[in-house]
């Protein structure tokens, strides 16, 4: 059982460092819950005394698939595991455990998501740091922005939020409440206004008031809608008028419940503006968000943050290890 103890240790330290980075002492229920069941379930497959065989690998592959990792990527991962088992001469089921984790980690770490330490630092010469937040409908953009603003604020930065979702009913009102909770300023226009104009106003006001960070909310849009994607392009272009190197960050918000379509989403949003990171939301639920694995494998986009609840302090820095551990949970 040494392996599981060691593993437990690793998980807690990874999770701990994540929370520490944000100054959080409490461990989120969602993550800890999945962590516990992970152990029992994986123990079920990789039981002591069991030998590695084809059936075992199939079972593992199925666990990967049910975590939304997808057919091809799951198959590739298991193929690598199989090869390593052969090459390194493993026989006992327990030994597969570290190999599997290692293979998954490799995929996540090859994108720069492992180096997440400097996120709340900004370059004082290049203020304001502008962040554009994009994604399909209903993934949690607005909530994420509230939390992100709060985190920046806690890190001692001055923040202004731009309400460039001028389309959805009551989007302004919703964002206003979040700005209020985070204790940051908001720039908005009336419902139906040109979103690019709102973005412009926001960056402009940040420049004139010498603020550190601009976070722009955008309306949810399905990635196959040309005109809506063009609108996003326009927002970036308008930001560049004020700040040629902006937006410094474009975060794509993905809902952890989303299946394989998330890959398509990432591909299409990338075409409009370079995505600097993914925010994976709703990880406090039963969904695993495993689709970020094929996204990392194929598109090399790092995951930056995870959303683990509806409260303002429920946005955490992404830790590949903690994430992989949670992946296998019940």
């Amino acid at each position, binding site marked *: 059982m040494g392996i599981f103890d060691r593993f437990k240790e690793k998980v807690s330290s990874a999770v701990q460092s994540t929370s520490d980075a944000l100054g959080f002492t409490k461990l989120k229920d969602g993550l800890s819950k999945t962590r516990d069941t992970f152990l029992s379930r994986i123990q079920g497959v990789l039981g002591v005394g069991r030998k590695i065989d084809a059936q075992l690998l199939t079972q593992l592959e199925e666990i990967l698939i049910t975590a939304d990792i997808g057919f091809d990527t799951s198959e590739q991962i298991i193929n690598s595991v199989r090869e390593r088992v052969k090459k390194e001469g493993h026989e006992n089921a327990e030994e597969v455990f570290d190999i599997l984790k290692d293979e998954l980690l490799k995929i996540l770490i090859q994108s720069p998501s492992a180096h997440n330490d400097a996120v709340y630092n900004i370059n004082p010469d290049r203020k304001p740091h502008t962040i554009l937040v994009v994604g399909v409908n209903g993934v949690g953009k607005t909530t994420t922005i509230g939390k992100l603003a709060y985190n920046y604020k806690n890190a001692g930065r001055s923040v202004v939020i731009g309400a460039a979702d001028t389309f959805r009913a*009551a989007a302004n*009102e919703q964002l206003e409440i979040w700005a209020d909770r985070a204790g940051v300023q908001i720039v908005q226009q009336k419902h139906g206004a040109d979103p690019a104009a709102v973005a412009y106003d926001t960056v402009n006001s940040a420049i004139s008031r010498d603020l550190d960070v601009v976070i722009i909310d955008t309306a949810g849009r399905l990635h*196959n809608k040309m005109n809506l994607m063009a609108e996003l392009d326009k927002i970036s272009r308008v930001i560049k008028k004020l700040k040629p190197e902006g937006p410094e960050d474009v975060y794509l918000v993905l809902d952890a419940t989303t*299946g394989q379509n998330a890959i398509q989403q990432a591909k299409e949003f990338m075409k409009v503006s370079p995505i600097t990171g993914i925010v994976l939301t709703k990880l406090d639920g*039963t969904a695993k968000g495993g689709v970020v694995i094929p996204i990392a494998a194929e598109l090399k986009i790092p995951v930056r943050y995870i959303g683990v609840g509806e409260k303002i302090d429920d946005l955490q820095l992404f830790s590949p290890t903690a994430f992989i551990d949670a992946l296998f949970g019940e």
Partner: protein
Amino acid sequence: MFENLQDKLEHALKRFRGQATISEENIDEALREIRRALIEADVNLNVTNKFVEDVKAKAIGTEVKGKLLPEQLIVKIVHEELVELLGSKQSDIQFSSHPPTVIMVAGLQGSGKTTFCAKLAKNLRKKGRQPLLVACDVHRPAAIEQLKQLGQTINLPVFATEEKNPVKIASDAIIYAKKFARDVVIIDTAGRLTIDQEMMKEVQDISNAVNPNETLFVCDAMIGQDAVTTAKAFHEILSLTGVVLTKLDGDTRGGAALSVMNVVGKPVKFVGTGEKVDALEPFHPERIASRILGMGDILTLVEKAEQQLDEDQAKKLEQKIKKNEFSFEDFLEQLRTIRKMGSLKDLLGLIPGMDKAMRNVSIDDNAFNKVEAVILSMTKFERENPKLLNGSRRKRIADGSGTTVQDVNRLIKQFDDMTKMMKNVSRGGKSRFLKSFGLPQNLGM
């Protein structure tokens, strides 16, 4: 976007061409492809495994006869099986004989509940009902305001109070509805995670208090493997009477439909196909089946097109394409018609195999105005005879339309590609031009 299942099966079964029956040995690779297609479409793993077993049982021993190739036969079996599982009939809202009919809506955060409530209200009013919308999401910031604003847009009353207890709001709304003769009450609830016990109890309490005639589970069509877990949890607590799939205007394959129905055992009553309040449609199992298999939601295209094109027009067009007479004049007319149906790329994406054909042809809806300008700068004669468009004519057209020669060249290239493609597509067809894209013809049925 996705490779069609039929293409993959063709590959898998090539070696077995000419064999008279489908046997255990020649079907294995094909089953693998089916399994992959379903998993890529987000059908739950267990549902997939069971489905593949069923298809295997059905397929083995089947004679390959007539014009059907083995892969076509298997796709046919798979498609039929899917349609059957998805329910061959669509079912409407069941109204109570003692009004008001109470419809409760529940689901995960961001799945589209509030928007759906407004869409449903509008839809039922059109059918002569007097709906009342009820705002029970006391949790998400500005959720009540959102429903109020939607109510204003569709000009229907929204029951919203300062009350913090959603159970009380819902009960009060029923009393209100009775008093003011609203015969349908649509209750919007907060989004919730199934592991949030407090919130699950809340929605159960609302349900117990109002005893709904319909409890609809609103599910994002893009949901992955978790669909089953989530649907099961909601069903256990609320005894769902139906499912609503939202955001089908995206390009998701929508395998969740199968997973959810498998758990809930109740029909999908509506699908959401847009953000606007009238983007609500009935569920068509055969279309989702084609979508899941990556064969395009062809019937939707046909239907959309049929709404816009009349029979005569379609026949004329078919003739023209056959005779190689499709001109810029027709192109312009088609573009204008298609524009009325939605984004060009969306529409083309609905056609099986079109993705591949269109990969190198970029279609930007915003470029449409430019395209129109270019075509309008051609003389009528040029439009009817695109072959005539030499360098000097192209230059003149570019100047006249305020575009560049490159723009004109690109359009002419696009036009050529398109006519070629249309010819290919229409070659396979038997009957009408648009029908010739259809699955039934592909399968030789």
